[in-house]
């Protein structure tokens, strides 16, 4: 009997152990389940997330359709046609001819050089001049606000009107500039009428747009905490040191932004179409800019294929320059670091 009870006990203890083990197993399962649990509410949430996901695509769809129709399809066409002789009607394979020809075309060389000169002089000149202009109006006098508006007004003039205006002002015989020059005893200046003075006149004309840069500089100044200057003064920094060590580093984001946008802008500039002689090319092609060359090839000569190749070359140059600007932008100080 005892043995049976003992065995029963043994059995019962065995079954207990089994149960315990089972419990352990279940607990482990439970723990696994708990571990897995974070996934479950996610699955429950997913219906709301799915709705948001769908809503996101719906809200973005106009952009995607627009980009496809008015950017990617034309881009693809342009890339395709750049390997063809294409006048808008007949396609004839050209291989790499258009790209090779671009490097042999004297007009391309001339216009690229003109564009380069224009960009290399115009951008730094405007940056510096607009800085001094901003410095001049960076005070809180009552009348300064009026002057800021006055300085910005030339920028407000639409490009066509400004072209019309400068064509008139620079006119060799009827122009007001030559009258002013003559009245102070200087000889007449040919401006756009001679190849040698054309580029100078174009850059001079651009100087009336420094109000735009002024606004950017002013907003840069506004963002520099005043106490930086105060503590620098206490530490005995002179005006130049404050400029070099506070104003310039704190303004670098604006300088950088200005640099990138104006490089992209001035390489494509074709505003000379409005006012330069010979339909925007200037005498001896002295004002022939790259943007005008592309327009000329596509619209006047009907070489759509060649113009496409030229515009892709421009795109490559702009991409490389933007890439270089961003890669070498370690000098830009974004604060807080």
């Amino acid at each position, binding site marked *: 009997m005892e043995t049976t009870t003992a065995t029963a006990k043994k059995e019962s203890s065995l079954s207990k152990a089994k149960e315990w083990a089972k419990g352990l197993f279940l607990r482990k399962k439970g723990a696994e389940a708990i571990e897995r649990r974070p996934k479950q509410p996610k699955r429950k949430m997913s219906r709301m*997330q799915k*709705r*948001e996901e769908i*809503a*996101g*695509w719906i*809200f*973005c769809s*106009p*952009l*995607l359709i627009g*980009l496809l*129709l*008015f*950017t990617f*399809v*034309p*881009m693809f066409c*342009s890339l395709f*046609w750049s390997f063809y002789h294409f006048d*808008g009607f007949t396609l004839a394979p050209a291989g790499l001819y258009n790209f090779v020809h671009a490097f042999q075309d004297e007009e391309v060389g001339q216009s690229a050089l003109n564009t380069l000169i224009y960009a290399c002089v115009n951008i730094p000149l405007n940056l510096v001049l607009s800085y001094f*202009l901003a410095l*001049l109006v960076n005070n*809180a*006098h009552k009348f300064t606000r009026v*002057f800021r*508006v*006055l*300085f910005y*007004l*030339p920028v*407000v*003039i*639409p490009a*066509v*009107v400004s072209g*019309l*205006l400068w*064509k*008139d002002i620079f006119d060799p*015989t009827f*122009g*007001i500039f030559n009258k002013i020059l003559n009245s102070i005893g200087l000889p007449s200046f040919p401006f756009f009428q001679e190849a040698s003075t054309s580029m100078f006149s174009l850059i001079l004309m651009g100087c009336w747009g420094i*109000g735009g840069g002024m*606004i*950017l500089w002013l*907003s840069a100044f*506004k963002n520099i905490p005043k106490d930086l200057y105060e503590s620098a003064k206490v530490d005995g920094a002179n005006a130049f040191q404050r400029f070099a060590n506070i104003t310039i580093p704190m303004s670098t*984001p604006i300088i950088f*932004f200005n640099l990138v946008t104006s490089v992209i802008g001035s*390489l494509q500039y074709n505003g000379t179409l*409005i006012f330069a002689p010979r339909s925007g090319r200037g005498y001896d092609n002295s004002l022939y800019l790259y943007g005008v060359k*592309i327009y000329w090839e*596509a*619209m006047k000569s009907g070489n*759509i294929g060649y*113009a*496409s190749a030229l*515009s892709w070359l421009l*795109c490559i140059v702009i991409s490389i320059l933007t890439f270089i600007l961003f890669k070498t932008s370690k000098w830009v100080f974004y604060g807080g670091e």
Partner: protein
Amino acid sequence: MDFKAIRERLTGEAYASNRKARAWDFTKTTALFVGMCLVAVVLMFPYLFMVFKSLMSETEILDPNPHFFPDWTNLQWNNFVLLFTDASSGYSYGLALLHTLIIIAFNVIAIPLSATFIAFSFAKLKWKGRNICFAIMMLTMTLPGVVTQIPLYVIYAKIGWLNTLYPFTIPNLFGGGALYIFLIRQYMFGIPNELSDAAKIDGCGPFRIYWSIILPNCKSILIYIIISVFNSYWGDYYGPLLYMTSTDAPYTFAYALFRSTVEGLASSQWAAVRMAGGVFMTLFPTILFIVFQEKLTDGALTSGIKG
């Protein structure tokens, strides 16, 4: 200014009685004023020249000895009337103005609506393709315009859109450009999420949240966008130059002025009327700038810092 005020308060009468400092302040202010006046004379010169020339008579224009100031006793306000009434200029400016206004009226509604619609998905919704779509959009910003303009000319020619207003309106149903969408997105980040979360708990769908919560809160960036849209289409001569090839196309005002500038001589009798057209074109951007000065410069600021 603040620093000076504090200094004045600290040193009190000692500073006020310091005549030398006050005299120095006075000369500094005067020098500043004179400097600004000089720069203003130079920078405003073309602007004033344009206004004055638009008021000149035919004899004054044809005078080989050009004047800066018009004959004050005989101002030709009539030039502005002639601009719109006299058809002999060859450029029907009145009709051209109508076309420009149609384009602007369309875009001033279409671009803010579609751009906020798209920007909402980037700023307030979480979805998988968001970052990729945004990156693609930003990449198109650096693409030079000519890469798409010339093929679009061929495409428009194929589908019969040349010499119509479609190229200036229909593409803007899709956001009107990456820059606008980007600026609105940046602005929407500033609208607290609590607003839309509360609406979400109340059972509002994304469309309701966009229409009745986010859109009404975008007012101040939309003013900036609307003014930019107005200015860009008001002054757009290059689009019509590409896409309006026939003589009976619906010219815009800027394009009429462009053609008049390119074709006309500076000394012809129409020069003053043309200049009146220039003044008319400059008038609206000028008013918009003066009225919304702070909003516009703020817009330049946000795109400058965060761009």
